[in-house]
């Protein structure tokens, strides 16, 4: 029973364009949602988070949108840069633990 799902395993985007990553969840008790970026041979790196009482949070090139009624969140990266090529995980918190999606591999082409 996957409580957090990332339905797109991969995404390819041109440098300078927008990358949109999507995530769906089923548990209404999640109170925070986070996005992590992971390079090979490194641990996940925190990017941005959003509280369940908000619908948008922005940090530089990264914006996360939350639609509670649809149990859906998305991460927008604008503009995309080659260094953004990595695997992106969305995660949800319901206390002390994080529940992760399966990840989306992003490739930004120069």
């Amino acid at each position: 029973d996957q409580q957090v799902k990332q339905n797109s395993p991969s995404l390819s985007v041109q440098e300078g364009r927008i990358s949109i990553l999507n995530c769906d969840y089923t548990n209404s008790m999640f109170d925070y949602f986070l996005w992590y970026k992971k390079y090979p041979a490194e641990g996940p790196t925190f990017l941005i988070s959003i509280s369940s009482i908000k619908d948008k949070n922005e940090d530089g090139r990264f914006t996360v949108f939350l639609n509670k009624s649809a149990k859906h969140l998305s991460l927008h990266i604008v503009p995309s840069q080659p260094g953004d090529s990595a695997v992106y995980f969305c995660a949800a918190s319901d206390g002390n633990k994080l529940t992760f999606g399966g990840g989306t591999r992003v490739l930004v082409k120069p």
Partner: protein
Amino acid sequence: DAGVTQSPTHLIKTRGQQVTLRCSPKSGHDTVSWYQQALGQGPQFIFQYYEEEERQRGNFPDRFSGHQFPNYSSELNVNALLLGDSALYLCASSSPGQVPITYGYTFGSGTRLTVV
């Protein structure tokens, strides 16, 4: 600023053996969580330690056990290894006073365990 340190980085064990993985949290953090990341999947929560006690546990069998020391470092032990235990094991540290969710847990680079 030393982040989360995990050792060893790679490990090969035989089915049925036991393994111990180690984690030193980021300076100032007192809470350690362990995650298992199988190939092609997202990390899965194993358990969390705070004040030397297991505070919460995920859906993992009793073969997985842990410990936290007074200096906040932690060990993950896995007994009777199965081929399916082959994965990247990630340690994450946090501090309640830091509002960890806002800033996110800090993850180590992981230990790659291969069971043959």
